[in-house]
């Protein structure tokens, strides 16, 4: 594919001896939402965490194979740099409880000791919050602690914090599984806006969500990527028996 932003080649990931991701080959096109779905323990989260090299932070965890970001192997880059280029949003909203909303958004710069002028900072904060569809709700309390927000707002704050670094890719690890249905749908709407500027990879075990938000879907089963196709094809005409079983709910 010409506009491929991320590509993995024969990618394996391990916890100690235990292989949890097996020979995954995937190509992610730019400005798309790609959903990674599959039953619990299928390695989808581990695979996601390999993309920005968070996997290797766990003791005994390691990975093999190539992970190419714009044709450059992320495993040849400095992990700090990789994580600047590839942002991440977690399952549970985790804003920094000791920082204000403003400081949370700018945290990636501030805590790294990057100096930026106050005016530029203000612009980054406002733009990031705008893009995360949170600006209107928090603009009057921007110097208050982020932990007073609702769960959905906190999650959007985490998204703002990640996109403030202007990453190429945003990884979302079941970003709505800790949220109520209204917050969930607001995040899903937001993802459609975000894909104009970023490439999104979202892990979900909720296939309705995968069908709603993604352009392409990858189905993982026991560490293997069983099928990867346009979401429309995947849900109407799955090629693999296992995908079919999963979609029709014969196992979960």
């Amino acid at each position: 594919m010409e506009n491929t932003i991320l590509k993995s080649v024969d990618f394996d990931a391990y916890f100690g001896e235990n292989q949890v991701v097996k020979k995954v080959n995937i190509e992610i096109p730019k400005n798309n939402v790609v959903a990674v779905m599959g039953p619990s323990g299928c390695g989808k989260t581990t695979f996601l965490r390999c993309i920005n090299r968070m996997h290797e932070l766990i003791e005994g965890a390691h990975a093999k194979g190539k992970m190419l970001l714009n044709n450059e192997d992320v495993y040849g880059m400095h992990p700090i740099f990789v994580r600047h280029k590839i942002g991440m949003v977690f399952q549970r909203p985790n804003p920094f409880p000791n920082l204000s909303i403003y400081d949370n958004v700018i945290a990636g710069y501030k805590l790294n000791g990057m100096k930026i002028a106050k005016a530029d900072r203000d612009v980054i904060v406002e733009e990031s919050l705008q893009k995360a569809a949170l600006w209107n709700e928090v603009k009057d309390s921007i110097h208050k602690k982020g932990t007073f927000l609702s769960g959905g707002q906190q999650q959007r704050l985490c998204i703002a914090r990640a996109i403030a670094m202007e990453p190429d890719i945003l990884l979302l690890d079941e970003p709505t599984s800790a949220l109520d249905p209204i917050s969930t749908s607001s995040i899903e709407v937001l993802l459609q806006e975000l894909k104009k500027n970023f490439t999104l990879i979202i892990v979900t075990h909720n296939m309705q969500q995968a069908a709603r938000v993604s352009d392409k879907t990858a189905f993982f089963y026991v560490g293997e990527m069983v099928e990867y196709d346009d979401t429309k094809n995947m849900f109407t005409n799955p090629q693999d028996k296992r995908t079919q079983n999963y979609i029709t709910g014969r196992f979960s």
Partner: protein
Amino acid sequence: MVILFSVICTVPLFVILIYILKEGITKINWHFLVNLPKPVGETGGGIANALIGSLLIVFFAAVIAIPIGIMGGIYLSENKKSWIATYTRLSVDVLQGTPSIVVGIVIYFWIVKPLSTFSALSGSVALAIMMLPIVVRSTEETLKLLPDSLKEAGFALGLPYQKVILRIILPCGFSGVISGVILAVARIAGETAPLLFTAFGNPYFSTNILKPMQSLPLLIFNYATSPYDEWHDLAWGAALILLLWVLLLNIITKIITRKWKIQF
């Protein structure tokens, strides 16, 4: 029934408080705080040397123990299973149970004898050793309670490990760490035994930390066991001051933990 015993637990504190207040309050005034003790036979005099001495000795003890203790606590909370951590944790726990007089004797042989003089600094070192376990364990316990998701958030933003610890984990656990430090300071402020043969005591005013120095517990110990009524008065006053000091630090700790408590 249990309520009764719960109330009984508070009795010793109030007995001590009331008794010390009754005996000490009449002795305390401005002169008491800013003057030096008078020779036997003269009335009046104060405890300025002991007050300043205690502040200095405790201050230097804190300067020694706090950085080491906090760093050690961070290590223990970060490396729960390594053998160094297990070994450190055990050592620190044993140290916490070591009788303070033993710490005093060891410092006497290590520092006082080689330098051939009693000194405030040797007293500070002895108190630092008393303080260290409290700081280490309270730091460890506080930081262990912080959710891992905070660290992950930091790493995902591309922060290197030291910055995640120093700029996220430590600030988030700040109120707990600082309470541990203040409680440790309160705890050592009244220690007498380790100072007996280190700081030794000094009837005159001194701020030279390489020379013997007076401190509140030493003053109480020396003057209360003396046969002179004037000195007993000084000891009662000093006891009240010491008690108020400890009480105040405890209250400050409570306020800090409530005010700066971080909500998740």
